C-alpha cells in the first residue's frame, strides 16, 4: 500500500477533460435555472420585486 502512495496517478489531458465536462454543464445549469425562473413567473409562484439599489 505504501508503494501506491508513492506513485502519482496522472490522467492524460486531465485539465482539458475536466474543462470539457465542467463548461458545458455549467451552461446547461444556466439554461435549467432560466427555464425554472420563467416557469415560476408564469404560474405566479414567485415574482421578485424589482427594487432598485438604495442611495
Amino acid at each position, binding site marked *: 500500500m505504501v508503494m501506491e502512495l508513492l506513485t502519482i496517478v496522472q490522467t492524460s489531458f486531465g485539465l482539458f477533460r475536466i474543462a470539457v*465536462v*465542467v*463548461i458545458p454543464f*455549467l451552461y*446547461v445549469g*444556466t439554461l435549467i*435555472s432560466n427555464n425554472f425562473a420563467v416557469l415560476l413567473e408564469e404560474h405566479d409562484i414567485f415574482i421578485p420585486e424589482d427594487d432598485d439599489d438604495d442611495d
Partner: protein
Amino acid sequence: MIHPRQPQWRCPPQVVFCSTVAPSCDVVLQYKHGRPVLAVPLPSRQESCLFFLRPMLMTVGDLIHDLQREDPGVTSASVHTKDGARVANSTSIDSLLDKDFQLLINDAVYNIHSPEREASSVSSEHVVDVEDMKHMVQLLHTALHLPDHHLLKERQLLERLDGLKQDLSPLEQVKAQLARSAEFHSSRTLWTGVALLSVQGGALAWLTWWVYSWDVMEPVTYFLTYCTSIGVFSYYVLTKQDYVYPDAKDRQFLYYFHKGAKKERFNVQKYNELREELASVEEDLRRLRNPTQLQLPVEQIQSQP
C-alpha cells in the same frame, strides 16, 4: 596463656581454646556487596581476618596459600567436607561454596556454613539426566536431517504453487475483464459527479446575477448545502462508511464488480480463497529461502496485517 599449638591441647572437633578472644566455632561466610567474605580467626594473634573470596577465579589451594601468607603461624591448613573428607587444592571456590565445609587451621576445626546464594550467580549447570540426553539426540537428528527436509518442503510448495497458478489463470482473465468494466463504470460515476456540481454552480450563478438577487438566492444556497450534509450523513448511516472520495469510489467499484460477476457467473469466493492460498504458499517459500539459500534459521510465522 594457652598456646593453640600445644599438642596436649589438641581439641576435639568443634571446640577451640584461646585466651584473648573466643572465636566462634561456626565461622560464617557472609556476602558483602555480592562477594563472599570469610572471617577467619588467625592463630598467631587470635584476631579475625577477613578474606574476600573470588568464587570463579580462586581455588582451595589459593585460599590456603593466602591464609599461610597472611599468618606465618599457620603451619597446616586444609579444607574438608562436612563428612570429614579432604577437598583437593585444585577445587574452585565456586563448587566449594555449594555446601557447608570445614576449615582446619593448625588442628583447629571451623565449621563454615555457606549461605544461600543469590540467583544471579547460579550457573545453568545441572546433573545430566535422561531428558538432557533426549534433547541432545533430538538436536543431532535435527542438525543431520533438517536441510533435506527443507528442500523437500520447498519442492512440495513449488508443486502446489504450480497447481494454484494453473487453477487461477482462467479466473484471472475473467477477473481482469470484470475489473476493467467495473473501473469504467465507477469512473463514469465520478465524472457524473463533476457534471452535477457544474450544473448546480451554473444554475445558482445565473439565478443570483441575472435573474434574482443574492438576497433572494442566499437562503436557497444555504438549504441546498444543508441538504447535502443530510445526504452525507445518510451515506454513513446506510453504508457504515465515512463519505471520503477514495473509499466511496472503491465501494462503487466493488458494487459494479459484483454485479458483473453475477452476470458472468464468476465465483468471487473461490477466486478469493485461491488467491489467499497462493499468498500463504508464496510466504512459506519466502521463509524457506533463508535456510536453503542463505544457511540461516527459519523465520517464524508473523501475523499478517
